[in-house]
């Protein structure tokens, strides 16, 4: 965690929250699958998990790195201020206004840079822009708590209920995330939606999906669960980073399979289940 230290600003040092710095690797406008309406996604750099299926492997390390993209070296990661980002986010306001959209923080994992995340969400909130994060909740609960006053929607990844299997495929066990999910739900401060990446060989059996759905349905206030089918769009990036892709040869789940899993969710709980974000 020390890598993040230089961006942790001590509370006592009074400064404009718009000057808070963070490290991002991409901004995507007109995102339509990550929260309500048309959204701008800010992708933060750095994550504590190493999910084998991760479609943004260049997001995992906090350090700025180089990736080969179509034969050319591309610098991944840059340092920005909240002020710069909110100006960019403001640009699509006409589209948020018509669609009920807004800002989504993704990554990487935004909880790894809690001050920056908090301040960026705050800036959006103060301007009346809807806020969301896409996060797997693997962080001290205090970091989540910091964000909650400014967070309209939490799209929380729950990947598996089995701690051992979770650890095997992501590098960490899942106890803290499950606990954070419950605490977040209990706080009642944000609209919590559970998202499940459906990964063949990892969690794509009816029993596994039902296990997650069953857990999600016990979280107070949670009404929705999204099943996100595995895709291979990130595969080339592993090559670009000189890394091995462990899921080589695995096909995305078929539409029929996804429908079966959706029915399986409905069989065990009353949650509204949708395929895709």
């Amino acid at each position, binding site marked *: 965690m020390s890598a993040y230290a230089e961006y942790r600003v001590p509370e006592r040092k009074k400064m404009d929250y718009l000057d808070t710095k963070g490290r991002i690797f991409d901004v*995507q*406008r*007109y995102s*339509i699958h990550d929260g309500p*309406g*048309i959204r701008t996604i800010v992708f933060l750099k750095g994550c504590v998990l190493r999910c084998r299926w991760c479609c943004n492997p260049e997001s995992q390390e906090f350090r700025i790195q180089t990736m080969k993209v179509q034969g050319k070296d591309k610098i991944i990661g840059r340092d920005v201020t909240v002020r710069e980002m909110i100006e960019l986010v403001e*640009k*699509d306001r*006409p*589209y948020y*206004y*018509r*669609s*009920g*959209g807004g800002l989504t923080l993704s990554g990487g994992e935004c909880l790894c840079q809690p001050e920056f995340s908090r301040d960026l969400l705050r800036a959006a909130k103060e301007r009346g822009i809807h806020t969301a994060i896409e996060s797997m909740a693997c962080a001290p609960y205090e970091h989540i708590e910091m964000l909650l006053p400014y967070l309209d929607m939490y799209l929380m990844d729950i990947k598996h209920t089995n701690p051992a299997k979770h650890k095997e495929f992501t590098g960490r066990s899942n106890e803290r995330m499950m606990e954070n999910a419950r605490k977040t739900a209990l706080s009642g401060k944000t609209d919590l939606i559970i998202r499940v990446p459906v990964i063949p060989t990892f969690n794509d059996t009816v029993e596994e999906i039902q296990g997650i759905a069953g857990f999600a349905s016990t979280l107070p206030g949670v009404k929705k669960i999204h099943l996100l089918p595995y895709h291979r769009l990130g595969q080339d990036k592993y090559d670009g980073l000189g890394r091995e892709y462990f899921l080589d040869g695995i096909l995305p789940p078929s539409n029929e399979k996804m429908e079966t899993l959706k029915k399986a969710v409905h069989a065990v709980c009353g949650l509204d289940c949708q395929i*895709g974000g």
Partner: protein
Amino acid sequence: MFHTTDIPKSSRITRLVDNLYAKMPEIESARAKLITESYQATEGMPIITRRAEAFAHILRHIPIIIRDEELIVGSSTLAPRGCQTFPEYSFQWLEDELDTVETRNADPFYIAEETKKELREVHKYWRGKTTSELATSYMAPEAIRAIDHNIFTPGNYFYNGVGHVTVKYEEVLAIGYEGIIAKARAELNKCQVGDGDYARKSHFLNAVILSCQAVIEYAQRYAMLADEMASQCSDPVRKQELYVIAENCRRVPAKGASSFYEACQSFWFVQQLLQVESSGHSISPGRFDQYMYPYYKKDMENGNLSREFAQELLDCIWVKLNDLNKVRDAASAEGFAGYSLFQNLIVGGQNKDGEDVTNDLSIMCIQASMHVHLPMPSLSVRVWNGSPHEFLIKAAELTRTGIGLPAYYNDEVIIPALQNRGATLEEARGYNIIGCVEPQVPGKTDGWHDAAFFNMCRPLELVFANGEDRGEMVGLPTGDVTKMTTFHEFYDAYKKQMEYCISLMVNADNAIDVAHAERCPLPFLSSMVDDCIGRGISVQEGGAVYNFTGPQGFGVANMADSLYAIRKLVYEEKKVSMEEYKEALIWNFGKGFDQQTITEMTTDLLKKMQAEGKPVDEKTVSSILNAVMNMKPTPEKKARYEEIHNLIDEVPKFGNDIPDVDYFARDVAYTYSRPMEKYKNPRGGQFQAGLYPVSANVPLGGQTGATPDGRYAHTPVADGVSPSAGNDVNGPTAAATSVSRLDHFICSNGTLFNQKFHPSALSGREGLEKFVALIRSYFDQKGMHMQFNVVSRETLLDAQEHPENYKHLVVRVAGYSALFTTLSRSLQDDIIRRTEQGF
């Protein structure tokens, strides 16, 4: 209130469509023969009389046919999707291309040997008598030179009729041609033989009467044919259908329609026969859902009509709109690729009081396009702040099918834009779209909307060559570009070349305009446009209430990016000298000369030698060709040109929501739209700019050298007001915001903004919602028009490889939809290359 639920497609429609596309379209000679016969018999008579006589002669004798299972009848050719020819406008190109038209790349037509013979025979009569020949003799030599040098192309109306009009369909539906004849008679009765305009007016009104009578007779021929076919038909169901068809044709369009079915048949005769009188395309049905609605409503209330049958009739009309066709010269066919007639039909929007008038038929028109899934009509949707949400969702569902329809138009921009051109508020609220994207007041406008393609890149080339092009003085001598010391001076030179070239284009357009008035006035069309009957003159002579000429400029994005790059790199950052920039353009940024450049340079050198009286034999040709082919920059220079290209790449580009660049682009667009406004046309109206290229951005890009925005020589230029392909890297919202920063109000002849989406961007109800929100947001920012290609890149690539599997694949090309597999390879490539949005 209106219904939005799906109405199932009748199996008849599938069969009608299959029959329509069973064969390659064919050229027929009946009309050409008949008009020649008539003209030979009427030599020396007033032209308006000759036109009416010829129209009547054609309608009395042209072969007629009722196709299997049709409910709406009236075909201009025996062959499905066939076409007649119009030698009175031009014939030389057809004569030259008779043997190649079947095998050419864009829009091929089958033609029988017998037909070729007949056409060659009639063409003899027309030499020296066509509108195109007269137009040429009216043009200034410098305008002709500019055309030869591809600065602009007025080819559309030079070779063909004008079209581009919406007539008063509602009047024909209400009172029939008997009613219109009565109006003309009443006007005639008011004329006194001593009136100054008696000769002209009386002949015009008599021509109107004769034309309308001919149409009534034509419908009677169909009534008789239907009766005859019914009497021989063994299938009782079809027999009954044929009797009803006969009954319809006996009543309409002679009389006002008494039912929805009659209204449909009446509409069709108007639509078809306007396209027999003249070869002008973009005969646009306009607000079909509005003028047809009273008949629908009455029949529904009386219980005489089911929604299913009404839908089937609409579907039949949709099929018929694809049955009409037109052969163009090979070069124009590239520019208008896709056999398109641009019959624009628009639904939704406001009435004259500003109330939303979306109705059942608005929805059913969208449904009809879903059912037939064909390029015609060019379906358009009017959007305003009060548009019902479910109406737009239904439209978005059609977009999702990938047919490239509908196009979306913004009332909030178009209404004030038309008011700015003199329409009243009430008239402007009733606007419709002509052809691709051109707004106008229906029933009283002669917009001449597609008057020319103007290549905004060419005047910049003239700046670099001090007014010269391929050894000839084409533009103005604006001075040595390398000696221009400020950006202001450089930009001024561009503006001067623009203004000069625009004046030449105006000259060419006006010459063609006069030629149409003198040689091809159209009495039938004029009977349905205000205020021709009252004024006693045809549309072509200025009979319409509103008269415009609307040539369209294209390459706005290229010019904005080019001028911006020069400002930055040469004048502000001084990273590149103007001399180097000029050389880099000549050497195509180090890429070397392509075949086209080599051929052009060789030809020019040879011409120069001949002009100087030097001998030119085969040996000289090959030695010059070799010399040109071997011309290469030094390796250091080549590297520098490539470096310049990289520097240009890094300069911000239009289409990425960068206000500085976008507002600069707005100013660049003014270099075209502002000078235009001061010019008048011979019909008493004014010029107005449009910014849309149909599909001409590909062939005309092929006539343009490398441009300072980094575009390589002879590659396509940007399409409409859209950013250059591949330059918009921040996604659809950024591109839309950039485009909205152009001044769309002043471009009252229309602007065109294309976006391409992968189908999953519209998946589910939520996808549709977000899509509609995107359109609304662009329109909030005062964009004028938006259209979409929804198809995957993989699909398009596969369609290129296996065209046989994609016979029905429709894509939005520019202002219209076309069958992908019928487009030329380069246009296909361009469509594929356009940035895919959303992922």
